[in-house]
């Protein structure tokens, strides 16, 4: 299998799906002539043309709203929001239109749409541009929220998302695009709503997703040196949330750390740890630890920003605390 970057994996999935299905098209800011601000759609404009690779004005609400409308007519838009910080400008359409139409009109309308966007801090972009508010989008039934942590999952999940008939928020991470990994060629699909054990271990369970998966691997390597074998469960999807592999792991290790990049309060770790206690109360030997971002708007200064973001050391420390 080829080792390619996350960027290439996502680009490949998009390209193949567009080749496969005329109904699939891309719209968003700078997806065309520029080639995507993260270069994911580089070359698409020349190959697929302006009909299927549509640059839009800076108008997030109509980017998502028009994608919804196009989806209602049977097309399969992949609408890009340059970063998730701009999703607030399309909030109504993301959480109160796309997820409601199928239900509210009793199944008459379907919204086969993918919203591709990018979360994550660590690039000194300041408070308005560095957020990882993934959890708030997962609060809404009717919407699906996917966030891959490996190139293979990114390809397989994006293909599954594009072929799904439901509105799906596909959250990439700003500092994962260079991450390399083996990615199956061709038609590789990862079903949406399936968590996955990314590393086996018997001593402690680290539940995580997206960028924090990378940090969790590093933490696990460190911990192994101290003789602690961490099992890493990657959620991959926040809604639907597949607790199965998490619970299985917890029943084996009896110790859990949940690691997310976003703020702790009302975040992903809150839901996951609550579910763990609900489903495996008797198996928990020590309080589940949440590793997350400090509760501050992210500052520009690099040192302060890193102090606010969860680090490998934080995961290691948390793991040691559950023993």
């Amino acid at each position: 299998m080829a080792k390619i970057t996350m960027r290439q994996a996502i680009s490949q999935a998009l390209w193949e799906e567009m080749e496969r299905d005329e109904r699939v098209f891309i719209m968003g800011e700078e997806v065309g002539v520029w080639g995507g601000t993260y270069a994911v759609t580089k070359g698409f404009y020349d190959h697929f043309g302006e009909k299927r690779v549509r640059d839009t004005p800076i108008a997030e609400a109509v980017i998502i709203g028009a994608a919804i409308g196009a989806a209602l007519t049977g097309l399969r838009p992949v609408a890009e929001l340059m970063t998730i910080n701009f999703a607030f400008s399309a909030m109504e359409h993301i959480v109160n239109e796309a997820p409601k139409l199928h239900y509210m009109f009793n199944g008459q309308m379907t919204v086969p749409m993918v919203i591709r966007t990018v979360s994550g801090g660590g690039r000194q972009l300041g408070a308005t541009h560095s957020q990882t508010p993934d959890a708030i989008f997962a609060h809404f039934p009717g919407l699906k929220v996917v966030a891959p942590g490996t190139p293979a999952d990114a390809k397989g999940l994006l293909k599954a998302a594009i072929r799904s008939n439901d509105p799906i928020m596909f959250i990439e991470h700003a500092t994962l695009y260079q991450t390399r990994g083996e990615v199956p060629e061709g038609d590789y699909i990862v079903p949406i709503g399936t968590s996955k054990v990314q590393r086996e271990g018997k001593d402690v369970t680290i539940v995580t997703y997206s960028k924090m998966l990378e940090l969790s691997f590093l933490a696990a390597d460190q911990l192994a040196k101290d003789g602690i074998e961490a099992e890493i469960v990657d959620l991959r999807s926040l809604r639907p949330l597949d607790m199965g592999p998490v619970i299985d792991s917890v029943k084996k290790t009896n110790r859990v750390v949940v690691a997310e990049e976003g703020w702790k309060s009302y975040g992903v770790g809150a839901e996951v740890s609550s579910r763990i206690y609900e489903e495996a109360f008797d198996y928990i030997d020590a309080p589940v630890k949440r590793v997350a971002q400090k509760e501050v708007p992210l500052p520009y200064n690099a040192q302060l920003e890193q102090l606010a973001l969860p680090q490998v050391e934080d995961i290691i420390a948390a793991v040691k605390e559950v023993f």
Partner: protein
Amino acid sequence: MEKKEYLDLYNQMVVIRILEENAAELYQKGKIGGFLHLYIGQEAVSTGLISARKPQDRVITAYRDHGVAINSGLSANVVMAELLGKATGCSGGKGGSMHMADVNKNFWGGHAIVGAHLPLAAGLALGDLYQKKDGVTICMFGDGATNIGYFHEALNLSKVWNLPVLWVCENNQYGMGTAVERASAVSEIRQKAAGYDIPSDFVDGMNVIKVRDISKKLIAEIRAGGGPRFLEIMTYRFRGHSMGDPERYREQDEVHKWQENDPIGIYRKYLTEEKIAKESELDEIDAQAAEVVAEAVRFAESSPEPAPEELFAHIYAEEN
């Protein structure tokens, strides 16, 4: 236009009027819940407008949608059943007054967030353009909706992408209790279209034939590839914004003056004066319409509630 077409327009307006009056009663009786926005006074707007469309033309509107549903070809039965939240309603009882639709009739709802459906309309039009279909999307909204950002983003995109969409502002002078001039920088709403270089027109919304004629013209221009058009239709709602509106914001004299411009009365006068129909024929239609609505009420009241398991149906198109 054939005589039967003339009479059909009259019939539609009367059915809407009687249906709305019955809805108001049923609301008072507590048989209809939520918000109820009546279309009384505005019947000529959607009747004339939608009569100008072809089957491939899509219609989408706001929450004041009962009349639009009837004009789009939904039966009084499924509309009334939806108002009562029954399983037989056009949205299975899940949508209610503000969320009616029948995509098979190319009626795309029924949307309750002010202005939020304009971006959807741009997308519906994009869908037709992309698939090289010759449908035109007709998007209706109120005067108040033209002040929200969604309006701006949708109109701009429709021009930049030359989308086949007819933007229709139903200017009934108020957004809830706020008069147009208290909320909008321009009180001639069509002036806003100039900011997007979209050709605009306007028409008396109390005259169904005038509304129909201008709509036909604009829809044809759009279908010919002319890009978006904007139509401002002057009208007035005879009732409150929704049931239970204290109406502190307008004088009853104003309301009465407008009520003298009853679109149904005006059209009735036109039909008889132009010798298109006799009083007796129209009385006959009135009677039939009353019966249609009475039957719709019976149908709705005797229809079953949605089954409890419906609660979990259609959250997603696919479970996985």
